[in-house]
């Protein structure tokens, strides 16, 4: 087969039979659906590889495609399965889809959450004009109620929100709050960048044309890096009444804010930043329901933290990181392990904030052995069961 080495153009696609090229396009689509970032240039190179004789050897083609098309460790690990399913017809793909959906069904809290969110999103959109339309008919009372509702909502425990409209409203408020916190944190960082020192070396360098007389001064700014927020959200059954609001909150914070990462845990840990970066909140939650694979068998906070410390901490945590754990602290695993991992986490990051929605419940005291083991390592232990208590966090985070 002939091949154009220096400039792989679309011309090389002619070499691949039309059938193969459409198969290839379908394969690239499958990869994109699985979260790979594959661009046009990669597609072109993939086609070139097929014309260059790789197509005849499936093993070699797989290895070549794997290098070309994966971009990170997670891609690297799942590539072989996807490739085999697609090209070698090993039926892994269909199996993985059914397991994913059945796992999602096993975890009703998230699944229903996503569906519920989508529904309430629609109703909210439908209802927005209604106060104006029906305002005249209902008189001033309706409006008053609407206004005071927002105030009341600030103090209402999230689990007491029953009405879908109310839930939607709380979600919106959480997202808005996250947005406000994000921008304020960022702006504060910019203001701090003022103040400079003279960069002597560059000043002299820049003024060589003036005979070394420093006319144009070059200043050196201190480069500040923004604080990073890493959020670990407990998505177990006991937290199901709160996960919805917190997911919205996290989604708001992650949205275009580069220095933030989010993880979800129940019996295991899942990195959800990418899924959460989906612009549309309902779609983001939908993707999450597929990712969550907990079977609803309790909460293994210690083990999840261990996974986090082992595999993610080095990457997502630096010295300016605040780790925010949202959990009720009901540990079904080993509490001693939780204590150890909290200590290890504490050594790495700047602050650990533990938000426990149950804390504000009447008669609640941190009796659960999990929370007892964790508390000594926590810098701030706060309730976060209402929008008001969530707002109260902001000054604390801004101070760091």
């Amino acid at each position, binding site marked *: 087969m002939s091949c154009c080495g220096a400039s792989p153009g679309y011309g090389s696609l002619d070499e691949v039979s039309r059938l193969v090229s459409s198969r290839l396009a379908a394969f690239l689509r499958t990869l994109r659906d699985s979260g790979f970032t594959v661009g046009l240039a990669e597609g072109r190179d993939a086609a070139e590889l097929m014309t*260059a004789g790789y197509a005849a050897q499936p093993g070699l083609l797989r290895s070549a495609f*794997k290098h*070309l098309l994966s971009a*990170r460790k997670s891609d*690297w690990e799942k590539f072989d399965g996807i490739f085999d399913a697609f090209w070698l017809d090993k039926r892994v793909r269909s199996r993985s889809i059914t397991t994913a959906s059945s796992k999602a069904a096993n975890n009703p809290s998230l699944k229903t959450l996503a569906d519920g969110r989508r529904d309430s999103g629609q109703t909210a959109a439908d209802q927005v004009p209604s106060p104006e339309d029906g305002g005249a008919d209902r008189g001033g009372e309706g409006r008053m109620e609407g206004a005071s509702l927002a105030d009341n909502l600030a103090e209402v425990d999230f689990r007491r929100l029953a009405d879908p409209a109310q839930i939607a409203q709380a979600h919106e408020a959480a997202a808005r709050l996250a947005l406000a916190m994000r921008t304020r944190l960022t702006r504060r960082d910019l203001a701090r960048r003022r103040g400079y020192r003279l960069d002597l070396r560059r000043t*002299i*360098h820049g003024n060589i044309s003036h005979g070394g007389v420093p006319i144009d001064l070059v200043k050196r700014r201190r*480069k500040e890096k923004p604080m990073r927020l890493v959020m670990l959200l407990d998505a177990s059954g006991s937290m199901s009444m709160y996960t919805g609001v917190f997911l919205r909150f996290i989604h708001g914070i992650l949205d275009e804010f580069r220095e933030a990462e989010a993880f979800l845990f129940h019996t295991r840990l899942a990195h959800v930043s990418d899924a959460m970066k989906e612009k549309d909140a309902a779609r983001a939650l939908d993707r999450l329901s597929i990712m969550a694979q907990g079977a609803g068998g309790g909460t293994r906070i210690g083990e999840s933290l261990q996974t986090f410390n082992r595999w993610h901490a*080095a*990457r997502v945590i630096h010295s300016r990181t605040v780790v925010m754990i949202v959990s009720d602290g009901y540990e079904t695993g080993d509490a001693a392990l939780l204590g150890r991992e909290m200590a290890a986490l504490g050594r790495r990051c700047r602050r650990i904030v533990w938000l426990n929605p149950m804390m504000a419940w009447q008669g609640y005291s941190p009796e659960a052995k999990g929370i007892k083991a964790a508390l000594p390592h926590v810098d701030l232990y706060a309730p976060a069961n209402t929008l008001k208590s969530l707002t109260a966090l902001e000054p604390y985070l801004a101070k760091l």
Partner: protein
Amino acid sequence: MRNRDEIAQALAASGYIADGELATAISLMQLLRRPLLLEGEAGVGKTEVAKALSRAHATELIRLQCYEGLDQSAALYEWNYQRQLLSIQAHRGDDPDEVEEQIFSEKYLLERPLLAAIRRATPPVLLIDEIDRADDEFEAFLLELLSDFQVSIPELGTITATTIPHVVLTSNGTRELSDALRRRCLYHYVGYPDVDREARIIMARVEGASASLSLQIARMVEAIRKEELRKIPGVAETLDWAAALVGLDVRDLHGAPETVHETLMCLLKTHEDKSRLTREVSERLLGKVA
């Protein structure tokens, strides 16, 4: 050197024992002219790939070590400003335009790794080490360089690459790299080698290590990696340990359990790990090694 078996052989001849997939990656590097991004735990031999590649190609290795705050003047070029100042002093009274033209000429230009890499007569291997330590801005700049292979120096004009270097990037994952850079590169994840490959690495790199000892060491290290450690030993540590054992004249691990335990410091780099691998544990692990 296109075929992947040839590549594996050439790498082996230069002291790097590659697995088949890495050889494929290197053949693709040449075919598609894309940079190769290597990711993996510290100490699995990512940097060694570039070194072996340069030996196999019999070409120069140009290394750019990245760090926070790395900028173009340290990575690309810098004017030799002391010399420029001297020249200005020496030509005081001459036509200023002429002086300026002179001091911004090639003679006063200091090449830094990236510029050096694209101006060689034969394509060198350009190793951009620990790219995750550099800032986002530098990464964006690098991406531009890696796609166009040309550099513009305001005072001199645009410099186009005379040869396209073989580019190898490594990352430890301390920061998430941009999607654009990842897409531009071929990706290879370097894992810990299996027992067989690690034994062959030991034999290739440690003088005086017999086949049976190398295999024992590789098995022992594999067992240690399965323990719950804070810092898992990499290939570099294995080689240190093997060199230590050979240096202490150990022929068989079972014959010298004391020495084995005492030299474990070559593998374990934190106090916590050291105290976890007690004498009993090391003897138990040694017992499993055939």
